[in-house]
């Protein structure tokens, strides 16, 4: 698949990076519809100039002087070759494959692991400042209401209360295109139960909770709708009395503006691999020998990160400092600066450690804005961490979906048409599309996706680990399997035929061997109540690069090395990856490098979303390290009557290079040790030397680049193939996932240990989504009945199978580390692999998630015995 294809498709994604829900941003997201793959970071180009920009982007680094070098290219162990690239002169020579490196590519325990396991790591919820106040949110108990009056006098009289603030604007909801369609009111309309209304700060949490109950809010309760099907009906209560758009926000969620809307249904937005439909699907179906179709449903999943959303806001006389559990320190700073009309230099956001985000923690959030207001009023730091209930209700979720998918194929398997129609609710937000996999996974001349958002009176969605993709794969990968069966082809053989990705081809081969695919039994072949099955499904994701990625590397005379960047660790382990990259350059161990991140007072870092952190920031770290090293060698070399080029660093020392040159590892035999790294540092002319780098374009450019948003869509895609083994108890309906073999690519793996850890996490979260998680809203009141972690069921240790993560090294020669991302690809195929394994076990297909005992028993025909129905 051409990468321009993805890039263009991307144009309809809503933006997010470093922007806010301002008119400015709304303008930037000027076209298309329910984003299939909002990552929280995908900026939105203008269609008109797209071609020209893409062409320009394709050249890459054109303003910089470059040199030509050969770089490793291909899949290590399978097909390796070399490719020539133009490399900017201030960037280091290409790295060889991992096998020839000493730190990068080696399984490296997290450098901050001991801090986490001993509790020393300071998360936002651990921050305690002198004089700090505790805040409590006041939220609406009604799904739809007009607020007549808010009376805070009683609460303000509480002796421990220091400040109360009422929200005059709610972040996260879509907003009416034409505000005059709604009666103006003093307070924002309540459009979902749990919508923040106000907050209160007191001297302790207990007192804040107590005082919050004293705030009187008088609601005029309005009719509501929380069910997707009900909301589509013409007479359904309206969430918005006219067309509404969710401006791209730093808070995630959202979609393009200007989409047609009728009642609560916004769309359809027609799309395909070219950003618009490809070919003519009707013609494609006419040409097909076999057509498979099905209707697939998925539920709403909440992010349920271990650490809830929250901040400690400290409004000082000279600046606003906010400790925030965020995956985007820069985007939180930018949003707060805009809302409070402060220069960005007067807002500092700090995220030392964070307990997970999964896409829902890009923005300041209503809680963050409230905490800052409270701190300003009370003249004291204010801590506002959400409780689990607020977390479920008001800070994002993965939209549900009803997907009608139809695929046509020739007798030999060649696809002739793919047509997807999907409705989903992102609550009061937008972005429920699931078209990504249908658009981008397989070669097909005719592809049409039609995506519609359905507004309901429920909490707005937010970007969630590969938005739209797990849902899309649940449909696509099951239907591809069904097609294979009807064509009497092995599911892997069919994919070999229609899938152009060389990485996935290799991943299928490796996985099939591991699980002994050749011996897979026929569907439903097991006798007895427990039936086992084996299934496969694939992933597709994109090489997203945030060009606003900078860092500084410093060397001091005592030989210590620091890296500083605003980038935050969402949990994937970027600290360790950065330490490895810098250590490799200096020939030291990762533990010798001090990594300071998660603070906007450092050079700006990328948001951790879209699986783009490693690919965006590690090349910058290497480039900066390379440039400091060069400075250092230039100072040392004359002392040995040498030039900097003749010296190299490795094994904690400086060596005189032999005649051959090349990378350190290739010329060891002919080198001579001059002095240790520490001794060399002591000879520096100044106490400290430093270099700063920012992300340059990928070598050879991007498939598409958004100059305004400093954002690139790299050439090529990420794959990933997962195999699941399940045991189905056909008498209880319980599915047990026994083993998952997950074969993935993420460019050059920097720390395979951390990558495997992310794959484990992706698989576990996928199992949880496939079988258990379900945000349940009471049909009669619109209130969530399971806003906790007891009845909102999440996979536990006993449900976690044997997971075998297998990594391939794929070299594409696009930047100085050639590293890529894994967070999202790792969770995309899991639900579909389980569904296909269920079919192999039972011979019956499940079209709806979560795959609960109720649904399994119904699907297996034991429903006949049921006296009650199933919704």
């Amino acid at each position, binding site marked *: 698949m051409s990468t321009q294809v993805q890039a263009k498709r991307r144009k309809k994604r809503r933006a997010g990076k470093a922007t806010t829900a301002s008119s400015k941003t709304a303008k930037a997201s000027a076209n298309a519809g329910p984003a299939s793959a909002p990552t929280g970071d995908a900026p939105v180009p203008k269609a008109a100039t797209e071609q020209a920009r893409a062409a320009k982007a394709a050249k890459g680094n054109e303003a910089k002087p470059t040199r030509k070098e050969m770089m490793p290219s291909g899949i290590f162990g399978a097909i390796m070759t070399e490719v020539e690239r133009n490399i900017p002169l201030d960037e280091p020579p290409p790295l060889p494959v991992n096998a020839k490196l000493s730190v990068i590519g080696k399984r490296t325990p997290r450098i901050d692991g001991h801090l986490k396991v001993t509790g020393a790591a300071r998360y936002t919820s651990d921050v305690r400042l002198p004089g700090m106040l505790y805040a409590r949110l006041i939220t609406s*108990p009604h799904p739809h209401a007009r607020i007549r009056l808010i009376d805070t006098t009683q609460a303000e009289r509480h002796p421990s209360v220091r400040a109360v603030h009422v929200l005059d604007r709610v972040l996260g909801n879509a907003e009416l295109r034409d505000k005059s369609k709604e009666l103006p009111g003093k307070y924002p309309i309540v459009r979902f139960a749990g919508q923040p209304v106000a907050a209160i700060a007191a001297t302790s949490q*207990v007192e804040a*909770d107590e005082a919050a109950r004293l705030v009187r809010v008088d609601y005029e309760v309005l009719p509501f709708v929380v069910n997707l099907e009900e909301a589509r009906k013409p007479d359904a209560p309206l969430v918005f009395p006219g067309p509404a758009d969710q401006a791209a926000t730093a808070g995630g969620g959202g979609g393009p503006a200007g989409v047609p809307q009728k009642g609560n249904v916004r769309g359809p937005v027609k799309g395909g691999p070219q950003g618009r439909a490809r070919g003519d699907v009707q013609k494609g179906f006419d040409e097909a020998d076999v057509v498979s179709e099905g209707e697939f449903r998925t539920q709403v999943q909440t992010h349920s990160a271990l650490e809830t959303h929250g901040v400690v806001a400290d409004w000082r006389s000279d600046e606003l400092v906010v400790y925030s559990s965020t995956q985007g320190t820069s985007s939180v700073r930018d949003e707060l600066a805009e809302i409070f009309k402060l220069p960005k230099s007067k807002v500092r956001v700090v995220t030392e450690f964070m307990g997970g985000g999964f896409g829902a923690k890009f923005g300041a959030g209503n809680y963050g804005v409230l905490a800052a207001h409270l701190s300003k009023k009370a003249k004291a730091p204010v801590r506002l961490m959400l409780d689990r209930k607020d977390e479920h209700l008001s800070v994002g979720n993965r939209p549900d979906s009803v997907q009608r998918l139809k695929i046509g194929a020739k007798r030999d398997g060649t696809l002739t048409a793919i047509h997807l129609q999907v409705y989903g609710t992102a609550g009061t937000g937008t972005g429920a599309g699931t078209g990504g996999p249908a658009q981008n996974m397989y070669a097909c001349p005719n592809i049409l996706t039609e995506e519609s958002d359905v507004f309901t009176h429920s909490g707005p969605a937010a970007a969630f680990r590969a938005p739209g993709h797990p849902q899309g794969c649940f449909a696509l990968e099951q239907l591809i399997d069904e097609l294979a069966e009807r064509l009497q082809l092995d599911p892997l053989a069919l994919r070999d035929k229609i899938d152009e990705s060389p990485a996935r081809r290799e991943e299928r081969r490796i996985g099939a061997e591991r699980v002994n695919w050749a011996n897979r039994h026929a569907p439903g072949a097991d006798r007895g109540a427990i039936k086992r099955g084996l299934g496969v499904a694939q992933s597709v994701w994109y090489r997203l690069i945030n060009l606003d990625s900078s860092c500084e590397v410093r060397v001091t005379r005592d030989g210590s090395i620091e890296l500083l960047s605003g980038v935050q660790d969402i949990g994937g382990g970027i600290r360790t990856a950065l330490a490895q990259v810098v250590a490799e350059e200096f020939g030291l161990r990762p533990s010798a490098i001090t990594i300071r991140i998660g603070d906007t007072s450092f050079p700006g870092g990328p948001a951790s979303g879209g699986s783009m952190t490693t690919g965006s920031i590690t090349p910058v770290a290497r480039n900066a390290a390379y440039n400091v090293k060069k400075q250092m060698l230039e100072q040392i070399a004359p002392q040995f009557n040498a030039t900097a080029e003749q010296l190299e660093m490795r094994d904690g020392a400086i060596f005189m290079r032999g005649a051959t040159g090349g990378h350190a590892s290739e010329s060891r035999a002919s080198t001579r040790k001059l002095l240790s790294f520490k001794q060399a540092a002591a000879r520096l002319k100044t106490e400290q030397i430093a270099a700063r780098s920012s992300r340059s374009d990928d070598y050879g450019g991007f498939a598409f680049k958004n100059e305004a948003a400093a954002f690139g869509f790299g050439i090529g895609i990420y794959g990933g193939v997962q195999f699941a083994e399940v045991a189905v108890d056909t*008498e*209880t*309906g*319980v599915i047990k996932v026994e083993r998952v073999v997950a074969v993935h690519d993420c460019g050059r793996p920097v720390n395979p240990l951390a990558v495997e850890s992310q794959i484990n996490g992706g698989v576990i979260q996928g199992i949880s989504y496939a*079988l*258990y998680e379900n945000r*349940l809203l*009471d*049909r*009669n*009141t619109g*209130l969530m*009945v*399971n806003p906790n972690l*007891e*009845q909102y*069921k999440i*996979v*536990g*240790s*006993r*449900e976690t199978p044997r997971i075998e993560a297998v990594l391939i090294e794929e070299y594409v020669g696009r930047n100085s580390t050639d590293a890529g991302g894994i967070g999202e690809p790792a969770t995309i195929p899991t639900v579909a692999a389980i569904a296909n394994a269920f079919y192999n076990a039972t011979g019956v297909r499940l079209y709806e998630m979560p795959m*609960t*005992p*109720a649904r399994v*028993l*119904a699907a297996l025909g*034991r*429903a006949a*015995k*049921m*006296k*009650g*129905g*199933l*919704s």
Partner: protein
Amino acid sequence: MNRFEWAEATTVAEAVSQLNGRSVIKAGGVDLLDRLKEGLDAPERLVNIRNLKGLDRIRDDAKTGLALGPLVTLAQLDADPTVRRRYTALADAAGHAATPQIRNMATLGGNLLQRPRCWYFRSAQFHCRKKGGERCFAIEGENQYHAIFDNKLCAIVHPSATAAALVALGARLELTGAKKRREVLLEEFFLTPEQDIRRENSIGADELITGIRVPAPAANSRSAYIKQGEKESFDWPIAEVAVMLEREGARVTRASVILGAAAPIPFRAREAEAALVGRVVNEETARAAAEAAMRNATPLSENGYKVPLFETVVRRTILTAAR
């Protein structure tokens, strides 16, 4: 959570004397803390009985049977070899509840007295019949985990796994009040919604469970308990069954089949018991008994799956007890 006083009781008499309707007993504190946090209970005083001496013992006598203190933890029951051998259903019920951490804290008395987990009951936002309101939100609402028997007024399921096992084993409770001490058959201790919709048992306002006694098992008897959750880790049952079989030769002379997660009280499946008595337990008779158990089920809109599910779990538990 409201502010409250904390009273540390050192004797049963002292604990009981403090019960005045505005105080609550706190033992393991597992269920109580949930209720306090949601504001379902707002007592003026918590009377901590956790440190009362002598109430955490397990004693078994060949003739008189098992005597359990109310402060015995679920973890203790799970680990005790005698309980496991002679009162297997109880050990398995205790051992499969909640999580290891909760089982270390949760007491048997508290487990029997815990309030239902119905999500409408547990949320302060729903003023349901059980809280003095006029509706059962579950009957017309989200009822996939609710009762399939006796669900016309209030569709909660009784939450105690040990209750199902202890009823099957014929346990009795000793209750101590300010003025008197009484004993009651556990099965008769529980109240249906029709009997009293506001509570699940007949404990008096000034009473404390001070003992749980289980008769010594008959010579040729076995018990079994199976919990079926959607998950194994930290989940409530969607079906649970405790079975006690007494046999002469191969034939069943007496059977107790008690269903948990099925009705507002531990539910005795009399039809299943009748189907077993006089018969040899095998796949076929177990299946017939399981079907009989479900004959009069009245599932709601979303919990019809529980009927075939219970048939499976009843059959499997009977077969396990007969093994």
